[in-house]
């Protein structure tokens, strides 16, 4: 693994120093107004940045076991000129408590080409859409790494996707077109993880994984488009995508003994399915509020059903997901509230999920002592199940680039998305040095 890290670093440096594409050219014409503008030539090396972090969390219940103990080395190399840029971001996780204690990930590695009214980005990249905080509505491109549930920073939750992105610009308007030739799936919690409640089966299931892969082919490509407008009045996005559901559907086929009516065998076929989505988002200001909204229509999502007529326990439905939110400041305290609702269309009573699923989030944040100290409280509240995830934290900037964070994740309730983790309350610290 060490060899891999050094090899990658060497490749990154060689690219940085010898990439002929990245001929130096500065951005701004610097002649006075009575002279003809002329580009200023500069010589600027690639910028190396990143962070080193220790993240230690202890479960508040159940013997104070470690919820996480992790050392992270995030390294980024970026070089940019007026015509082109490249960026590489790899991350090394050291998890001393796990069997596989070193994990190397390439989060992003892409090349940018800049033209007068168009940009092209090719390679592995994180792509983020939408206006919602902490929830994913039109943010349908980068899949999610859910190994630690929703607890990591969102930059770490989103997985880079490999593809080409083109942006076209005309005044305040922009059109983004994305082609992903290679499917990237969401990463579920590992077996045995505290974030993976094991489902109970009537009999031991047999998994058939032959359909789980999505082959890389033109036919299996994903395509997305986004129109955006940024004006003084409103920021607006309209999106569409022909994609894959990032999570496989666990088609479950039961064998029932006709005499006893008991299930004698359970065969599970994980399979990814196509999903079509369209929607939009907006932000505008009505003093002193910043109002945000986001909505998407998803066509062809599979939902778990108890209908005995269904052989595999799943039925295809369309659904709508939307968010309405507001940001405001009172007495130097920043507040952000969101209401999120998911509506399954043509809902039937046999579905495991309710027709309406309601969620709310609230963020409070305040800086003290010239931004050296920050107190923050964020809560997800599952209205239907009366369960929540509360995340208080305090961050102290000990010095420039050096942060000490202490926080807690508190799960309340007993059911639903958050209540199911009510034994996973944890306190944690993160000590980070940015360079």
């Amino acid at each position, binding site marked *: 693994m060490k060899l891999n890290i050094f090899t990658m670093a060497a490749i990154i440096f060689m690219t940085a120093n010898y990439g002929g594409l990245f001929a130096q050219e500065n*951005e*701004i*014409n*610097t*002649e*006075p*107004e009575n002279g003809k*503008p002329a580009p200023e030539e500069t010589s*600027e090396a690639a*910028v190396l*940045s990143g*962070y080193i972090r220790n993240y230690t969390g202890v479960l508040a219940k159940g013997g104070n076991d470690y919820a996480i103990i992790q050392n992270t080395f995030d390294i980024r190399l970026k*070089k*940019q*000129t007026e015509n082109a*840029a490249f960026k590489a971001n790899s991350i090394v996780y050291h998890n001393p408590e796990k069997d596989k204690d070193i994990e190397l990930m390439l989060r992003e590695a892409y090349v*940018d080409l*800049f033209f007068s009214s168009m*940009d092209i980005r090719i390679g592995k990249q*994180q*792509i*983020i859409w*939408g*206006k919602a905080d902490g929830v994913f509505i039109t943010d349908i491109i980068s899949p999610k790494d859910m190994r630690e549930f929703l607890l990591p*920073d*969102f*930059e770490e939750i989103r997985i880079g996707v490999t593809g080409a992105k083109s*942006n076209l*610009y005309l005044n*305040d308007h*922009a059109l983004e077109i994305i082609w992903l030739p290679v499917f990237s799936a969401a990463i579920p919690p590992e077996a045995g993880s505290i974030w993976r409640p094991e489902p109970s089966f009537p009999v031991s299931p047999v998994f058939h994984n032959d359909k789980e892969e999505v082959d890389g082919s033109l036919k299996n490509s994903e395509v997305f488009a986004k129109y*955006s407008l*940024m004006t*003084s009045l409103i*920021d607006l996005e309209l999106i569409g995508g022909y994609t894959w559901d990032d999570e496989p559907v666990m088609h479950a086929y039961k064998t029932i003994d006709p005499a006893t009516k008991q299930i004698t065998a359970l065969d599970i076929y994980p399979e990814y399915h196509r999903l079509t989505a369209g929607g939009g988002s907006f*932000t*505008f*200001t009505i*003093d*002193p*509020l*910043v109002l945000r909204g986001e909505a998407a229509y998803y066509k062809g999502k599979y939902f778990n059903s108890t209908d005995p007529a269904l052989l595999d326990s799943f039925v295809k439905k369309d659904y709508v997901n939307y968010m309405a939110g507001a*940001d*405001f*400041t009172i007495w*130097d305290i920043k507040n952000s509230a969101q209401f999120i609702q998911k509506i399954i269309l043509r809902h039937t009573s046999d579905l495991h999920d309710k027709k309406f699923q309601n969620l709310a989030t609230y963020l409070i944040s305040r*800086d003290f002592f*010239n*931004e*050296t100290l920050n107190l923050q409280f964020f809560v997800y509240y599952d209205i239907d199940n009366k369960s929540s995830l509360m995340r208080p934290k305090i961050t102290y900037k000990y*010095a*420039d*680039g050096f*942060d000490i964070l202490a926080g807690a994740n508190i799960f309340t309730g007993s059911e639903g998305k958050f209540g199911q983790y009510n034994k996973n309350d944890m306190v944690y610290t993160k000590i*980070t040095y*940015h*360079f």
Partner: protein
Amino acid sequence: MKNNLTNNKMLTIALLFIFKANGLTADNLNGLQVVQKAYNKPEPKTQQAVLKMTLVSSSGGKRERILKQFVSNNGKTEKKIMFFEKPSDVRDTSFMNFSYDNGKPDDQWIYLPALKRVKRISNDSKGDYFMGSDFTYDDLGDRNPNDDNHQILKEEILKNENCYVVVSTPKDKNYMYSKTVTWIIKDKWLVMKKVFYDTDGNLLKTLTMTGHEKINGYWIRTGSEMINEQTKHETIMKLSNIKVNVSIPDSYFSERRMKRGIK
């Protein structure tokens, strides 16, 4: 000689009386006119610079912020975009502000590289302190003279500059300062010093200009210090690599540029 002295004294007393009586300077300017002259002083259409801020705590600890800023003003709208370079944890963050001459509230956006998203933020944040400094966003901008009532206090020589001293009280009683006292250099119309009082009327901050230059015919403030008199925290601000009336295309002030940054 005695008569001359007596006459001079009488003239001075008379001038002071006239000055106090009508609130005018010797140039027949009232407080609003002085502040308006500072507000409307000739400004370049565009300006770019590197801004370095050193934050000094009461115990002497220092923190440093460096950013590049680009400003364009067409007379109706001032557009400003800033790219943060230091400290390392905010590198590649950018901030954009559109300020309107017709009194319309500012539009503000911030790009956070970790979120890879441009967010519109509330223009209500003018009272927020900029990057942990002692300058609020409002301190960094030009406050519209019509937002305050102005009164000439005196004329004074400060650091060899002839200044008008103007006391300004906000028309909005909820404004973050109860009053400010400003030393404005005659002819240059630059703010030499400004003293801020909190909502309880106590001395809060003192701003002092530490450097100014005439660049391409425009007076530009190149250095300033803001001391919070209550916490003894201090911010030293310096502008360098200043270029005025360079060609900055309007497309520079865009979401595209916020995300892309500059190099």
